[in-house]
């Protein structure tokens, strides 16, 4: 399996990923422990709320709130660069003209 090559846009299976076997230095282990600590805290918070007998409302997920907010408010951080202007023009302005021309010339008399 030394010559395994993953498909484009796909990932390696976990058992063939070298990071699983070679990430053994102390710094990496400390990093993994910190991540596990964060995860454990979140799990604990969720379980405390879930099993609280006095809870009457839904458990709100702040990560979800942030994701929804970020996805619905991109214009706050929008900047007109070359790429964004090009995309805006291509998707917003050009179709108007193209569709007008195509629909006009598709009539039976075939004149604009």
């Amino acid at each position: 399996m030394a010559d395994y090559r993953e498909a484009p846009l796909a990932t390696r299976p976990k058992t063939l990923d070298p990071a699983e076997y070679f990430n053994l230095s102390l710094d990496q282990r400390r990093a993994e422990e910190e991540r596990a600590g964060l995860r454990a805290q979140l799990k604990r918070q969720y379980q405390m709320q879930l099993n609280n007998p006095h809870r009457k409302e839904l458990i709100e997920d702040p990560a979800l709130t942030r994701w929804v907010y970020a996805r619905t408010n991109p214009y706050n951080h929008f900047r007109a660069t070359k790429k964004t202007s090009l995309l805006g023009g291509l998707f917003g302005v050009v179709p108007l003209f193209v569709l007008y021309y195509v629909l006009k010339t598709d009539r039976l008399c075939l004149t604009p």
Partner: protein
Amino acid sequence: MAAVGFRNWARALSRGKQPGFSALFSQIRAASGPSKGMLPGPYPQTPEERAAAAKEYNMRVEDYEPIPDNGEGYGDYPQLPDRSQHERDPWYSWDHPDLRRNWGEPIHWDFDMFIRNRVDTSSSPVAWHTMCKHLFGFVGFMLLMFYLGEKFPSYQPVAPKQYPYSNLHLERGEDPEKQPEEVKHFNI
């Protein structure tokens, strides 16, 4: 291992400015109505902003990497690995098993694309070149054969239909007195 992490983290927190029990929970807190610091903001320019953003998203400062600022409106949202939910361990006890996600875990920008009904980035069971060869080989072969079938049609021998009664002389409305012409369909 998680207990060790918790101890270190609690020790780091107890050195913080807020006294007492609330210090343990000030870093990660369920937001009952998010405040300004809890919502995503603009792209972080200084290391302090980065640290604050990492804390807001419940990530380590070293792990936090904002999406590159190209004006498309991402702000300080973190760039998480483009891995589909198909790849996550099916046997781990997730908080939300169908989404294979834990509560409070930072959500990928394209999370709704990576759910288990949609895009799958896990490794394919067969190598890419094998898949390409099989698919294009089959499709190419079928196209070639259909093309040859169009070019060289092959069917049972056929002839124009032969009608009895002198080519249906009377049924076709011709004059009954007139003698119909003899049409010979075969030679014995």
